[in-house]
């Protein structure tokens, strides 16, 4: 196959998750105002303090300029045309999974996320978020036996208000950036996890986000707290229907790790990327940040970003506790007209803190891929250590790859290293594979998987398999 043919093939790659579920939704009218926020808050039966917090965030949002510093380009968002709350209609409060609308269960079945517990391979508990609300959370019972709280954010506000109030906004304050402020004002649901002292969470916790309704924005909020000496591994996946309009997804994720706690957060992001001409697709504007609050705590981010028209996200770690560790492993693939501006911030505050950044960017078609990162060593962070590696792979003459690291060092005992390379997919490697009878497409897929291996191996097994497949699909026909 010539490379021209194959590029065309790439452009027409299919998005398999683009279907729409026909389900009656309970939505608020489009537009954003204090009334809409009050409405969302009252629908969810929230306490007064939370409404007050939302309104503060909204007022702050009004004063904040649109962030224009990244390399992504898109028409300004009309915030008044977005529906800020949409939930599938349900009659009453659900007692068990059996009561969930079968059409919803079917949707998740189709996405490969069976919610019926007996069908699950053991080991993963799922919180399913559909548009603005959580529709089901599996294995809650079993987890609660160990004292682990895993529920939707709304349930957490009702059932564990003290924990929520203590940590909400403690890592990502609403004034952090415009998208975070918007999320703080209108967030609808998301997942909440609390792992008590000394407990090792026996299964992977996972949230599956699905945007279904049209013209709706999704604004979920996740809060994970790992108490002293605990461990939790959390996975997140996402898809959306195929539409010509852009949809906004502005999430906030906050992680808090206390002394010796470890949080491993993995994302496979596969929102609808738009078509070959760049029509439609999700704007994925996400603020993710973890705080290693306690001594010797550890937060590890792993992300595989293959979807979204625009990705704007920088999962970061604030290393407050001495000897704490932050990690960031990322694969970002941009094809067609996709744009990704992603990276991380590692803020070293405690002594002997360590961080590792491994970022792999792959650009094909007209895709633009940017790594933007900051490593900051504060004055008191004696013996801090950072290593960053950012590699970019370019496939085709029209794509772009950009690397913008920023190293700020205020302590002479710190050691900070950054390395980056950008190159074309290896012609010798392709030739070698093809000579041995491997098709060009399989060869590209192999090379890309090898290129990403350092990151993929950080993912839990099932997720790694899914991520590899996703990369394969996204790359179909990129080289002839």
């Amino acid at each position, binding site marked *: 196959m010539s490379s021209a043919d194959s590029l065309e093939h790439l452009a027409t790659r299919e998005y398999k998750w683009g279907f729409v579920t026909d389900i009656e939704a309970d939505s608020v009218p489009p537009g954003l105002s204090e009334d809409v926020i009050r409405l969302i808050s009252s629908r969810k039966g929230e306490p007064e303090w939370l409404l007050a917090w939302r309104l503060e965030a909204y007022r702050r949002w009004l004063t904040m300029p649109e962030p224009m510093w990244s390399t992504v380009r898109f028409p300004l968002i009309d915030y008044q045309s977005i529906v800020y709350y949409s939930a599938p209609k349900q009659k009453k409060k659900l007692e068990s999974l059996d009561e969930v609308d079968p059409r919803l269960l079917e949707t998740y079945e189709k996405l490969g996320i069976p919610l019926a517990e007996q069908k699950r391979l053991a080991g993963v508990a799922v919180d399913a978020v559909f548009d603005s609300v959580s529709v089901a959370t599996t294995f809650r019972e079993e987890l609660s036996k160990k004292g682990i709280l895993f529920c939707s954010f709304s349930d957490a506000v009702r059932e564990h208000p003290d924990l929520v109030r203590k940590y909400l906004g403690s890592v990502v304050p609403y004034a952090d950036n415009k998208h975070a402020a918007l999320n703080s004002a209108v967030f609808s649901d998301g997942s909440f996890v609390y792992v008590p002292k000394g407990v090792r969470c026996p299964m992977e916790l996972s949230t599956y986000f699905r945007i279904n309704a049209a013209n709706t924005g999704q604004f979920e909020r996740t809060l994970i707290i790992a108490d002293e000496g605990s461990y939790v591994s959390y996975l997140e996946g996402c898809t959306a229907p195929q539409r010509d309009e852009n949809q906004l997804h502005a999430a906030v994720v906050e992680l808090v790790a206390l002394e010796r706690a470890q949080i491993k957060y993995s994302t496979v992001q596969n929102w609808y990327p738009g078509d070959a001409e760049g029509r439609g697709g999700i704007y994925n504007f996400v603020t993710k940040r973890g705080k290693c609050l306690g001594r010797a705590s550890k937060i590890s981010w792993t992300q595989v970003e293959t979807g979204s028209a625009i990705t704007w996200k920088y999962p970061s770690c604030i290393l407050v506790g001495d000897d704490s560790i932050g990690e960031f492993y990322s694969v970002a693939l941009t094809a067609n007209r996709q744009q990704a501006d992603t990276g991380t911030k590692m803020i070293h505050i405690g002594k002997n803190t360590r961080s590792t950044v491994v970022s792999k960017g792959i650009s094909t078609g007209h895709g633009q891929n940017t790594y933007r990162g900051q490593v900051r060593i504060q004055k008191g962070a004696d013996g801090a250590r950072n290593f960053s590696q950012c590699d970019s792979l370019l496939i*085709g003459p029209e794509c772009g790859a950009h690397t913008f690291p920023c190293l700020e*060092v205020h*302590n*002479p*005992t*710190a050691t*900070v*290293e*950054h390395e980056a390379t950008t*190159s074309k997919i290896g012609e010798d490697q392709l030739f070698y594979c093809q000579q041995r009878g491997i098709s060009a497409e399989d060869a590209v897929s192999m090379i890309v998987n090898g290129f990403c291996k350092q990151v993929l191996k950080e993912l839990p097994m099932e997720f790694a398999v899914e991520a590899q497949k996703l990369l394969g699909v996204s790359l179909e026909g990129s080289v002839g």
Partner: protein
Amino acid sequence: MTRDAREHYVAGFGQFAEREAAGDPPWLHALRKQAIARFAETGFPTRDDEAWRYTNLGPIARTPFEIAAPASAVIGRADLERLSFPVFACSVFVFVNGRFAPSLSAPRALAGGIQIGNLAAALPSPLCPLEGHLGSLARPDEGALVALNTAFFTDGVMLHVPAGVEIETPIHVVYLSVPGERATISYPRTLVVAGRGSRATVVEDFVSLGGGVAFTNAVCEIALAEGSAVEHVSLQREHEDAAHLGAIRVRQARDSRYKAHGISLGGRLTRNDVLAILDGPGADCELNGFYVASDAQHVDNHTTIDHARPQGTSREFYKGVLDDRARGVFSGKVIVRPGAQKTSAQQTNKNLLLSADAEIDSKPQLEIFADDVRCSHGSSIGQLDEDALFYLRARGIDLATARSLLMRAFSAEITARIGIGALRERIDELLLARMLRTRAEAA
């Protein structure tokens, strides 16, 4: 604040245009007016500007600098001897406070139709070779500092090397600043035009005679025609009270080679702004830099290598040593434009931090819009290697000597790239002497 600064310079320009610049040819007059209009519009950049995020020009904007008075009369050859730099015979051009000082200069006869001299002498000539070159690479609309220099410069060196001519010995240009009672500013301007297949080495040497608040706002333009080669040393060793904001603008035609060595040792505030555009296929660009800063010095190297055409190669190596409360900034951008295939670019920044209060901000950046390229960058920040120190001490070498040996090795990686041996040795000595004034020796 910037409003005052703008008014100050705009008012100063009115006087300047009537007196010093009265004899300008019309094209230069127009260029200056455009430049001051631009400055009036923007004023000095602030830290809100991403390119100036780590460097605060507030104090510069607040100080009412006056154009430095002529001072060559107060300088004797003896003063110059003290600063004397080249240990070999070459053409020396000395400018004092931005004005040519013929009595201190020693131009040597150069063969082959080479035009060299001071700008002020060349400007009024009806056959002025500068029109079309001056201000074409450092355009007044690209930034406040270039605009300021364009509006106010009166002199500097111009060098035109005709096609096929090679100049063996370096041209040594000394920009000497003699601070006065009040805060003064000078505007040195350098223009180098290298014809097809020509070759030249230019050393720009910025020095001060005595302390006092002085601001040097320098601009250097270098145009390289097809197949030409220019080696350019820019040495900044001004007094610790001085502010030095310099811009170097380079345009390279096909198969030309540009090699720069930017060495910053002095100045309270230093900013070197380098832009090299590889505007023809097969051009090669090498930027080397070394900086040493101690006390409250601030040194900012801001470089851009723009691969606009295919088959270009570039290498960038910047290293620095920071002590006391010094702050270093490195921002290096490599751009590969769409279609600039077969580009190879490499960029490295390494820093030694010697004190708890020193700080470094390093931003190596790659912006790539073509696929058949090989680009890499690396940055590191750390201390002298403990193992290496131990190795030397285990062999009976005392700590101070061991440290200075390692420092020398650290800087030698940069200076080893200087093409002319005598120049390299002298710069090595200067660097070592400067580094030994930092904590490396004391510890």
